[in-house]
């Protein structure tokens, strides 16, 4: 268990990785950085999380400043990407599925995630995928396969996907834009908006907007939260470190959220989830 607790960035590691993160938030680079410099105590980890949040925020701002059309222009810079990553991306491209096969699989995703990817409530809440950041979706599908993120149903679904299909599906949801599914307790929305915009300084919780964007639409490895199902967000924040970051050998971007999820009280979790559920 100690291995799981350990690594997060410190300031020196930020500096070392700054050149890689210049134009783009790349989850692979973040994960590599997370492995490089283990930090052990909780306060250091919390500090590291906040500092990384600040770095990511400035990176997002820079990326948006440099590039007029945000999501597509923020695609990984091939020239700077390490060779192995480029090779993997090329392999995924060459492995792109035939149209009919893609459509069948995409329809299959929407069986549970809603006909327009808006999410669906069954015995379990199925998250909204519409408008989600492809880089985030791809990383989550890989996390299910590698069991970094534990979810038996999604492991079954994801582990049969070839890399090309996985990439195509992650891209497929980006352009869907249905209305939020709704169902959140409306009276909690104002308090949730305040947490989203200002954080909870006393509990070391940064403003959600600093990484997820003022409109909560995410960027690169940072997921879109706008329109997410209230009950889904509540469950995920509550169970954060039981579901995510489960492979000590492969720390991932989920560590950024761990101290933040733990810093929120159950009431605050409900509030922020209600606000996000209401956002278009």
């Amino acid at each position, binding site marked *: 268990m100690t291995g799981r607790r350990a690594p997060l960035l410190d300031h020196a590691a930020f500096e070392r990785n700054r050149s890689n993160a210049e134009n783009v938030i790349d989850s692979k680079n973040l994960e590599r950085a997370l492995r490089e410099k283990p930090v052990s105590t909780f306060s250091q980890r919390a500090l590291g999380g906040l500092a990384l949040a600040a770095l990511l925020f400035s990176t997002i701002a820079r990326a948006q400043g440099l590039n007029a059309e945000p999501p597509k222009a923020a695609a990984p810079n091939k020239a700077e990407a390490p060779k192995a990553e480029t090779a993997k991306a090329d392999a995924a491209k060459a492995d792109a599925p035939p149209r009919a096969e893609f459509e069948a699989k995409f*329809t*299959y995703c929407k069986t549970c995630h809603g006909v327009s990817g808006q999410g669906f409530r*069954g*015995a379990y809440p199925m998250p909204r995928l519409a408008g989600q950041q492809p880089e985030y979706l791809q990383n989550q599908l890989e996390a299910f396969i590698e069991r970094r993120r534990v979810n038996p*149903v999604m492991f079954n679904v994801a582990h049969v996907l070839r890399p090309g299909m996985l990439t195509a599906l992650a891209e497929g949801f980006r352009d869907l834009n249905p209305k939020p599914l709704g169902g959140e307790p409306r009276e909690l929305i104002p308090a949730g908006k305040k947490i989203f915009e200002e954080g909870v300084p006393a509990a070391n919780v940064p403003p959600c907007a600093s990484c997820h964007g003022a409109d909560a639409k995410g960027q690169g490895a940072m997921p879109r939260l706008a329109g997410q199902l209230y009950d889904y967000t509540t469950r995920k924040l509550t169970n954060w470190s039981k579901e995510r970051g489960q492979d000590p050998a492969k720390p991932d971007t989920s560590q950024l959220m761990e101290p933040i999820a733990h810093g929120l009280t159950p009431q605050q979790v409900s509030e922020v989830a209600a606000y996000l559920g209401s956002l278009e």
Partner: protein
Amino acid sequence: MRNCTWCHGSAAQGFSSAPRIAGQQPHYLVEQLLAFKDHSRDNPTSKQYMWGATARLAPELASEFAAYFAALPAEPANDGDSALVEAGRTLYEHGAAESNVAACVVCHGPNAQGFEAIPRLGGLSYGYLKSRLAQWSEGYHASAFPMPQVATSLSPEEVDALASYLSFLR
């Protein structure tokens, strides 16, 4: 009420093509009664019996019927092929990702007890479950997203296994 029990049985445990409605999710029962009334549930036996039965049904009465039947104790039909139970359970809990079969459990729940407008399936009769799945892939009751899509992804053997597994669930 006498009219309902004529086909569904005096304890509402179902008989022949009429399903068990005892212990069913009340929200689901209301939606189905209204779907018979507006003809969006257009399966052959629905047309034959339920369209007429619900033609003059007021929504308030539909809710009262639903609450009454939902509160009755339910007995499992136990009439599937017991040799297929394990295959059915696997399919129910895990789906079959290679052939785009979704896991039933995510909507219908771990013991197939249903949720709000999603029906309880545990203990329904083999014949009813099988004909519903078959009729979705034939195009009946097309408005019941996502079931038409789910049913078309199932092979006849998978339908047999699922209906068998569910018929034994308490």
